[in-house]
């Protein structure tokens, strides 16, 4: 009897032990599950040889064959499109499920459910800017259009088929570490992903900063700091190109549009600006026509610069079914291919950089239920939002919507704010079916198809570069861009003076967006610069126009002839800094009299420097550190404070000011008795640079100075890579800074009457850190190597080729 009792006691203790090991305690996941050899991290180790691996899955109508090549790139062969997109969803989820779902948590403002209170402000920001609401409205469009309905529905089914399987055995490691399970995939997740990208690429503007600067410094200084056109622009559409169309009338500027200097609206603090790209980063694409290549046929290149992260932003694959055969990279979570080529054409994208987000002050009535718009009182639409917070109680709030967009900042969200609230109008909030563009491009056969596909595209505005087997090349900046009166949207506006119709529906017609077909110079290119010169009949406002990479690409392409694939590889890895080339000749003479020995040495190195920013040289570290100190001192009046947001001028504008306005009043340093000049500012910042490298001698080598890292999306250091040996920086064609860089490099060659792609990206096909395909490409990406794409005509071609290679 006693023996039995002891047995019962041991049994109960053991069961309690199991229950404890099975529970998530606070942020600690289930230890039992995590340690389990069959369910825990051990089961995420996935080392295998993929070449020629053939998998068959049962899709909606029948079997689909997936063949993996040596890079773990799936080539999907289906008998119909529904099965094709089903398999795409399945295969993508198999490699990237956690990433796909995590991004939808971010976009829909639900991160608190996974990581608790620390994500609350970010979640609130994402809900307050309306990403979820616009995704919900967009999915209605996507599922009502026959062209996108089937792909999105089949894709969803495929993802869910994998989730079902994964829950039985295999789940990505992040679920285990964060202690949660994947939820059923919904079509809206794909729409959320596209809106997330819209936020990533257009969710920024300078309205608040410009308003503050104009109020603080006045018009004359403002115009020197923030001109609409760079001093020496090199736009996408070459200077002097005529525009043969009759433009629509710009809206009339409201009488009260100018700022009242006494109004206490200016000094807003913009509390959260997540994921903002560093300046000088964006993307490059170009296409050279047969007249400039050694083969006599076009070559198209594209390297979009995005945040460097694990799992990689892109997933590479081939989709093949009757009526479609396309190869390229795509965003995990959405059907189709975003950048790539088919048997007839190729296309690539860069961000347009057009300002499509405006802010308005709003007047409300005493009850706070109504607001004044276009001099009429309207009632707010109220949306209640509840945030489930892991390990804490729920948080709720009501977000007020006007006809043109939500109140993002008010006393609820930014407690330092005075009573004036800010309404946001943003083209990304309009429901749109941008996916349709990509699905149409995937099947496009010619230049007309390309233009037709682009007609469907809204946001984020992109520069779509194009080439085909007929030797045509083209580029078009496409998106919905407001027709504005000059400076409309550059500053905070008053909602009471706004014209609702203009804000909601007055856009530059698609056929009048910047576009060029077969340009005379034999190439077309874009690098986030201003798209047009002043001949363009519409007012153009960008939030951040590049003016170095574009000029470097254009100078190289202009000088080149008989271009080969290797030339294009070299250009994608070009490390020349025009920034340094233009700034140093102005800066160095000011410090030539330094008596400091180290200073003399630095001057000598910078004087001899060829402006190439290789990872192992020290001159770039000296230059960029000196530049950073110079900006901090010269533009000390533009330092962000708790009361006000400011922004530095673009560095090319700073160079222009040094050159053409050497006595610019802002060179004076605030809070000193002396009236500092450019000479003083450059000398003080130079001395700081010397001192900095005395303190941090290890950072003289450029790679340690910039510390290029690829970080895991959930910021798990062990799954990240640091101090990558790669040159380049912001404003350089090889735009690799600390966190940003070429998220993929693609070169697509049209020689010999067929299309051949080459590519490389900083990561790997698998999102699983335990897989040998997680970071396969990082080293080759760093070294400037490319792999050759396998673009098969059909399944027999794939099998035969793989046999031959074996």
């Amino acid at each position: 009897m006693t023996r039995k009792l002891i047995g019962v006691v041991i049994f109960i203790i053991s069961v309690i032990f199991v229950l404890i090991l099975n529970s998530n305690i606070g942020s600690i996941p289930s230890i039992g599950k995590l340690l389990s050899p069959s369910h825990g991290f051990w089961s995420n180790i996935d080392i295998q040889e993929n070449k020629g691996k053939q998998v068959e899955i049962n899709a909606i109508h029948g079997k689909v064959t997936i063949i993996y090549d040596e890079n773990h790139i799936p080539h999907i062969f289906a008998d119909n499109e529904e099965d094709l997109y089903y398999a795409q969803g399945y295969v993508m989820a198999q490699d990237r499920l956690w990433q796909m779902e995590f991004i939808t948590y971010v976009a829909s403002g639900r991160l608190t459910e996974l990581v608790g209170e620390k994500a609350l402000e970010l979640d609130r920001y994402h809900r307050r800017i309306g990403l979820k609401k616009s995704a919900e409205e967009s999915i209605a469009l996507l599922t009502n259009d026959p062209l996108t309905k089937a792909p999105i529905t089949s894709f969803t089914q495929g993802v869910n088929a994998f989730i079902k399987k994964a829950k039985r055995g295999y789940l990505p490691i992040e679920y285990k570490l964060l202690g949660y399970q994947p939820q059923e995939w919904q079509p809206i997740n794909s729409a959320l992903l596209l809106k997330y990208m819209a936020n990533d690429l257009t969710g920024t503007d300078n309205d608040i900063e410009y308003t503050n600067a104009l109020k603080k410094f006045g018009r004359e200084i403002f115009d020197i700091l923030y001109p609409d056109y760079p001093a020496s622009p090199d736009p996408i559409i070459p200077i002097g190109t005529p525009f043969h169309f009759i433009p629509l009338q710009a809206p009339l500027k409201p009488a009260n549009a100018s700022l009242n200097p006494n109004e206490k609206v200016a000094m807003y603090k913009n509390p959260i600006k997540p994921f903002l790209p560093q300046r000088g980063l964006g993307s490059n694409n170009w296409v050279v026509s047969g007249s400039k290549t050694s083969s006599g046929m076009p070559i198209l290149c594209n390297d979009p610069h995005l945040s460097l992260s694990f799992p990689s932003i892109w997933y590479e694959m081939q989709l093949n079914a009757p009526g479609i055969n396309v190869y390229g990279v795509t965003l995990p979570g959405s059907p189709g291919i975003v950048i790539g080529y088919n048997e007839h054409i190729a296309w690539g994208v860069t961000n347009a950089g057009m300002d499509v987000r405006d802010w308005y002050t709003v007047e409300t009535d005493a009850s706070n239920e109504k607001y004044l718009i276009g001099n009429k009182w309207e009632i707010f639409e109220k949306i209640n939002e509840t945030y489930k917070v892991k390990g804490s109680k729920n948080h709720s709030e009501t977000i007020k919507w006007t006809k043109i967009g939500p109140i993002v900042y008010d006393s609820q969200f930014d407690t330092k704010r005075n009573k004036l609230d800010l309404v946001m109008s943003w083209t990304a909030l309009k429901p749109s079916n941008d996916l349709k563009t990509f699905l149409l491009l995937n099947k496009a056969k010619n230049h007309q198809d390309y233009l037709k596909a682009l007609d469907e595209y809204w946001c984020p505005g992109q520069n779509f570069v194009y080439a085909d087997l007929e030797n045509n090349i083209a580029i078009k900046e496409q998106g919905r861009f407001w027709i504005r009166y000059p400076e409309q949207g550059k500053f905070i506006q008053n909602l009471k003076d706004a014209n609702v119709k203009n804000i909601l529906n007055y856009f530059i017609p698609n056929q009048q967006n910047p576009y060029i077909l077969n340009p005379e110079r034999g190439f077309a290119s874009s690098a986030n610069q201003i798209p047009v010169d002043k001949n363009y009949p519409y007012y153009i406002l960008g939030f951040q126009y590049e003016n170095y990479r574009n000029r470097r690409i254009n100078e190289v392409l202009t000088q080149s002839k008989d271009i080969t694939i290797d030339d294009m590889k070299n250009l994608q890895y070009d490390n020349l800094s025009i920034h340094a080339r233009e700034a140093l000749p102005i800066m160095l003479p000011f410090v030539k009299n330094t008596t400091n020995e180290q200073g003399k040495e630095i001057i000598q190195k910078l004087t001899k420097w060829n402006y190439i920013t290789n990872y192992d040289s020290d001159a770039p570290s000296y230059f960029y550190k000196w530049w950073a100190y110079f900006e901090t001192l010269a533009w000390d009046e533009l330092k962000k404070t708790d009361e006000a947001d400011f922004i530095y001028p673009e560095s090319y504008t700073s160079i222009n000011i040094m050159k053409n306005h050497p006595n610019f009043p802002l060179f004076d340093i605030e809070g000193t008795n002396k009236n500092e000049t450019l000479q003083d500012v450059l000398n003080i910042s130079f001395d700081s640079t010397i001192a900095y490298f005395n303190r941090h001698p290890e950072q003289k080598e450029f790679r340690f100075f910039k510390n290029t890292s690829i970080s895991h999306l959930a910021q798990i250091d062990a799954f990240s890579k640091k101090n990558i040996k790669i040159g380049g920086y912001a404003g350089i064609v090889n735009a690799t800074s600390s966190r940003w860089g070429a998220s993929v490099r693609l070169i697509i060659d049209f020689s010999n009457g067929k299309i051949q792609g080459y590519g490389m990206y900083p990561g790997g096909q698998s999102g699983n850190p335990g897989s040998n395909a997680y970071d396969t490409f990082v080293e080759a990406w760093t070294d400037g190597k490319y792999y050759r794409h396998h673009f098969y005509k059909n399944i027999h071609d794939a099998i035969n080729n793989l046999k031959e290679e074996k």
Partner: protein
Amino acid sequence: MKIYSFIIQIIAIAILSWLICLIAPWWSFVIIAFLSGLIANKHGAFSFWAGFLGIGIYYLTSSTFSSKGDGFEFVNQIGKVLSSGAENPISGILLLWVGTIIFAILGGLFTLSGALLLSNEPSNKIGSGKAKSRTKGLKLDLKRYQ
């Protein structure tokens, strides 16, 4: 002969635990351990060690087999994650042993409780002296309850 049945029990626990965990939750191996205790109904100490070794073998072989391709590289990364940025992170090998011991103890306890719950006299008397000396390590003096 009886030592063979002890070894067979260990191997059976290891294989069946591996099999059940392929289809059932991570903790399902404790069912195997418990049932084997009930069925084999050995001397308490033997039961404990049968469960301990059986599950230990399941853990060691299964996890070592999983990481054979990458030489513990991934498990070392997991050690770093679990050490949350400590200067000397937990190594993969340490994780392997921590996992093995936790799982093996669970296995031992469930097999033991299975054996004890069945009130019949234990069928295994052989080597009871050895068993006695082995049980010294355990806080529980099993001999008293026979």
